[in-house]
């Protein structure tokens, strides 16, 4: 049976966002297929999304008191916040209630389902695999998730692992390893070296943990910096668009630079491919191959007959000359046969000679000249890119002198790029193949730990247990690889089938899922293609014969150009049975009108803002379908939605 999960609505009271209650149901009490929720930045959009994640994952109980207190409404007398989220699971209603107690810094949950209310976060077993901290970010997602699925080293695999719970095998493997560690810790021994060996294991284990944590932290920081760089680049482009005097020249130059970079990239790929054929590197290499072939021909190698031919003759009653085959004769023939090559050798030498004829031909200079011509074109392309880069830099500097917004974005990009390079150099030492005593290389340390554990196992007479542990871990590792490969293959096929169905005009497919999604025939698609592919992947995960999940997305159109907005707007609603998205007013253009509205009729329009925005509050009072709370207004109206023009409120 398919588990069909839909978000029905929620209410929030006592948090940093305005108190509000949102219902996503239409007149027939069914959730709208598309709900558009407009909240200006600064209204508590991020707080609302985080509360949705916390309420639907049970993760708030792991938050520290100071983290809990950060959610408190900044009004005196508010000592708790209550978030109530309603889901429909195959038409049955389940309500999750999260209460944040600010005075004690604690979070508690209540769950209401068919049998009544229970204390704690208690989703039905069949939806538990979706409602947990590992998976929640995949269906309540921000605009950046799609990007991460295509670039972050393990994001796509993690999504698959979390959904199909293949990582349980890894967790069991860790438990097995922990068990072995506990057993060896309690092992009494008289061996003098035991303490020393155990200390080595402990030292290596703690180093590996320390370095792995540091590496993960650096990796996250690097990803954050990359996101910031992209944001600043968008800010820079926006600022340039407003600079009337330079924008035309800058955009033209940028286009020329992009074209030059593309040419350079293509030529580099061609030159690399050509360089992997030795005959292109030097005519001397070509001549050497030709001479080898000629030499083999000269000495008649390989012979027309292989040694097996003569060995078979010896087994006959008669020799090929017609005389009887005597043992003496057979012995002589066998001795001589060893001077001949075996049939496989003959085949190989013939294949080598054929390859020389086909690949090198008779004019080795020609291959080499073509390769050097290609290299010359590449040098020219590199020079062009360099010249255009300098020109572009000079022009942007000039624009920066005229406009502080451009200057600021430029400086931020330079600073962030420097920060990125620094972090990258820091992370390298954890991966570099440094075999020295004080190495930081995690893989080398792991190999040393394995060795140290083996030595410890010997000395503590736990060899048998260690063997069993290793075998079990090995089986679990194989099971994980096999299950993971099979599931990943299936998801890949289905994702590509879905891309063909949803994006028939785009010639784009996923080549493989190896950590992240890899596109076929391209290192990187356009922004629109990347997003479409990422959403198609998530949709494949979310809408299967066994389950169907909503898409809840923050700012899906924020950083996109108009044409991409239209493409994404027309695509996402087709990928899911329920699409709930948070937008700001500037995202409406092309994403909603021109995008979503061209493919879906039944759309819900909601605007949420603080009451202090007096002008719009006055307008909201005229709308029949609205809710006004102590500090917020929630307006259900399409006209109001389109009249509302405010991207940013004062920072909270």
């Amino acid at each position, binding site marked *: 049976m398919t588990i069909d999960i839909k978000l029905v609505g929620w209410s929030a009271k006592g948090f940093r966002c305005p108190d509000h209650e949102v219902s996503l149901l239409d007149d027939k009490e069914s959730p709208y297929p598309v709900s558009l929720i407009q909240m200006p930045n600064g209204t508590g959009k991020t707080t609302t999304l985080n509360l949705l994640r916390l309420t639907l994952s049970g993760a708030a109980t792991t938050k520290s008191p100071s983290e809990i207190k950060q959610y408190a409404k900044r009004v005196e007398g508010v000592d708790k916040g209550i978030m109530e989220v309603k889901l429909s699971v195959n038409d049955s209603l389940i309500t999750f209630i999260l209460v944040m107690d600010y005075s004690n810094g604690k979070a508690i949950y209540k769950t209401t389902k068919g049998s009544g209310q229970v204390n704690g976060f208690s989703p039905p077993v069949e939806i538990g695999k979706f409602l947990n901290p590992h998976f929640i970010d995949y269906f309540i997602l921000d605009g950046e998730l799609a990007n991460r699925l295509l670039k972050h080293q393990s994001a796509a695999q993690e999504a698959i692992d979390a959904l199909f719970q293949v990582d349980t095998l890894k967790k069991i493997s860790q438990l097995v390893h922990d068990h072995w560690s506990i057993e060896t810790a309690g092992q009494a021994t008289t061996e003098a070296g035991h303490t020393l060996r155990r200390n080595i294991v402990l030292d290596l284990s703690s180093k590996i943990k320390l370095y792995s944590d540091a590496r993960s932290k650096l990796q996250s920081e690097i990803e954050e910096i990359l996101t910031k760089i992209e944001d600043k680049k968008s800010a820079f482009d926006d600022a340039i668009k407003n600079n009337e005097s330079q924008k035309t020249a800058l955009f033209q130059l940028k286009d020329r630079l992009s074209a030059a970079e593309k040419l*350079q990239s293509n030529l580099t790929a061609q030159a*690399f491919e050509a360089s992997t054929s030795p005959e292109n590197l030097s005519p001397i*290499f070509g001549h*050497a191959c030709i001479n080898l072939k000629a030499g083999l021909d000269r000495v008649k*190698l390989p012979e027309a007959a292989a040694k097996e031919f003569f060995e078979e003759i010896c087994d006959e009653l008669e020799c090929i000359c017609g005389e009887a085959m005597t043992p003496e004769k057979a012995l002589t023939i066998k001795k001589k046969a060893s001077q001949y090559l075996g049939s496989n*050798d003959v085949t190989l030498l013939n294949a080598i000679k054929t390859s020389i004829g086909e690949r090198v031909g008779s004019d080795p200079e020609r291959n080499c000249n073509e390769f050097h011509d290609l290299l010359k074109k590449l040098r020219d392309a590199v020079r062009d890119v360099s010249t255009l880069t300098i020109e572009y830099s000079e022009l942007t500097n000039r624009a920066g002198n005229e406009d502080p917004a451009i200057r600021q974005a430029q400086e931020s990009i330079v600073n962030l790029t420097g920060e990125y390079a620094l972090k990258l150099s820091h992370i390298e030492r954890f991966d570099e193949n440094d075999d020295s005593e004080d190495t930081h290389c995690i893989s080398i340390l792991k190999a040393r730990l394995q060795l140290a554990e083996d030595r410890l196992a010997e000395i503590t007479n736990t060899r048998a247990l260690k063997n069993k542990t290793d075998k079990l871990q090995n089986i679990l590792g194989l099971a994980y690889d096999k299950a993971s490969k099979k599931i990943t293959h299936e998801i890949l096929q289905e994702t590509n089938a879905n891309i063909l169905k949803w994006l028939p005009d785009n010639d784009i497919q996923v080549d493989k899922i190896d950590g992240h999604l890899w596109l076929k025939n391209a290192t990187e698609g356009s922004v629109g293609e990347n997003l479409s592919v990422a959403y198609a992947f998530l949709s494949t995960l979310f809408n299967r014969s066994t389950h169907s999940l909503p898409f809840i997305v923050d700012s899906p159109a924020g950083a996109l150009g108009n044409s991409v907005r239209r493409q994404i707007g027309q695509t996402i609603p087709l990928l899911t049975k329920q699409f709930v998205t948070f937008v700001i007013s500037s995202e409406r253009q092309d994403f909603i009108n021109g995008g979503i509205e061209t493919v879906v009729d039944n759309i819900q329009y909601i605007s949420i803002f603080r009451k202090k925005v007096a002008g719009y509050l006055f307008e909201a009072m005229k709308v029949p379908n609205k809710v006004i709370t102590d500090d917020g207004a929630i307006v259900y109206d399409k006209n109001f939605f389109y009249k509302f023009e405010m991207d940013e409120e004062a920072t909270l």
Partner: protein
Amino acid sequence: MSAFRLRKEAKSWFKDIYKGDGLEIDFDMYYFCLMAGIASNAKDTTFQVSDTSELIDYFPTRYKDKSRIIISLFLSRELAGQGVTLTDKKSAHNHISQLISPESQNYLSDNGVKLMNAYAYKGFENLIEWFTDRPRTLESFLGTYANKISEMVKPIPI
């Protein structure tokens, strides 16, 4: 069946042009080291296995249809080095059968792989000498590499 082996320092040296927009597999590094060794007629048969990392024992897809040319070049260099002139069938047969093995996936005998690894091992030292600093971009690497090969290689008397 023996595997190709790459000097451990090579990965650090190539790291800026490895993955991303550059070399795609470890064998790419091995190939460039090997060609440098063969061009310079330089090999180190005394290298320590512990100074190297094991790679695959077959030619990867990119090199599959070029593998026989790589082997031809290696045979030419090795036979020339041993003074085999390919005028005497018996001597040619003996020397060639010690280097190739049709049953192995890389068509080389264990001894053949060992010798090829010796060229790649020494070839990495050539690379370090040829480049003032490790390569930062694939395009600059390819240009300098091709020039140095042309400059260093001498006719192979086979």
